């Protein structure tokens, strides 16, 4: 299913046929970026009228913890998607209203579910996610310990047999 807001990392469809054309286009774009170094940086940053530097830092921090719903492996701070821009403005507006970071997160979770949070909260439905790795580690460790114990026991029995054999056979071998 194709979602419609433009993702800037849109896949190139007809790869073989249009590769040379794409390359030429990329070179042109690259040249453009070189010519106007401001373009690349300016796109992701909206000129939001922050009160002071501290607020800007807080804004950057908060939007980095939030997921862009369109380009889902980008955070709100970095995404160029249209919706991300709208949501950044929304977050900024809520900050101006004096809302705390947690309140702003709650505001977005109420609309977009916990999917907007990059850090999923610890709750029954995410227990497996949070504790799964530990569980698998414990499982693996148990298997390793059991195996080592069994082997060492087997080796002890083996060596006893070998000892016996040595005694019986003397130094012949």
């Amino acid at each position, binding site marked *: 299913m194709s979602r419609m807001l433009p993702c800037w990392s849109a896949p190139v469809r007809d790869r073989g046929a249009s590769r040379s054309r794409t390359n030429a286009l990329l070179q042109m774009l690259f040249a453009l970026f070189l010519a106007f170094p401001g373009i690349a940086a300016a796109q992701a940053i909206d000129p939001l009228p922050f009160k002071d530097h501290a607020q800007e830092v807080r804004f950057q921090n908060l939007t980095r913890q939030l997921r862009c719903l369109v380009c889902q492996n980008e955070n709100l701070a970095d995404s160029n998607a249209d919706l991300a821009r709208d949501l950044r403005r929304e977050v900024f507006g809520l900050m101006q209203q004096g809302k705390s970071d947690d309140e702003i997160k709650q505001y977005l979770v109420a609309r*977009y579910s916990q999917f907007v949070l990059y850090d999923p909260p610890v709750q029954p439905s995410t227990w497996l996610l949070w504790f799964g790795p530990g569980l698998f580690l414990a499982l693996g460790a148990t298997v390793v310990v059991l195996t080592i114990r*069994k082997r060492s026991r087997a080796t002890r029995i083996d060596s006893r047999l070998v000892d016996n054999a040595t005694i019986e056979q003397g130094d012949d071998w």
Partner: protein
Amino acid sequence: MSRSLPLFGFLLLVALFGFGIWWNTRHDPREVPSPLIDKPAPEFVLPLLDDPTQTVSKASMLGKPYLVNVFASWCIACGEEHPVLMAEGRTLGIPLVGYDYKDAPEDAKAWLARHGNPYDIVIADQPGRTAIDFGVYGAPESFLIDARGVIRYKHIGPFTPEIIERELKPLIARLKQEAP
């Protein structure tokens, strides 16, 4: 026992990955579940596309169930969905409300004139501010809202005739029974 342990582990992984593949063929991993299902729809007041002096609000829509379909002229998947709505829209038996999302009014009007208009009314949200309250993150998306203004169902992505038959119509039938 210790010999069959690696095989057992391997089979466990096969089962795990198999489940993952099976799950992903049935679910769109990019789909964001809506926390708004069975919650009151957000308050909204939006102008009509054809006549911006008139507005439609949540309050004005109370009393009967209706389907809100978020679309836009720039949205390619909406073009795929459009013929389905043209064919099935009138058979739903409830008002079909077009929600023109982040779109220039002229573009939307031209688009509807070219492809046909399946909607009973079309409301326009050019800034996309109300859409955030609805948790819209793309188009098309559709919300089924009951007579009391509660969101009962959300479909993300284009409707197909199968989804309309299997999911939407049974729900509409139930909502109609509930409505006084």
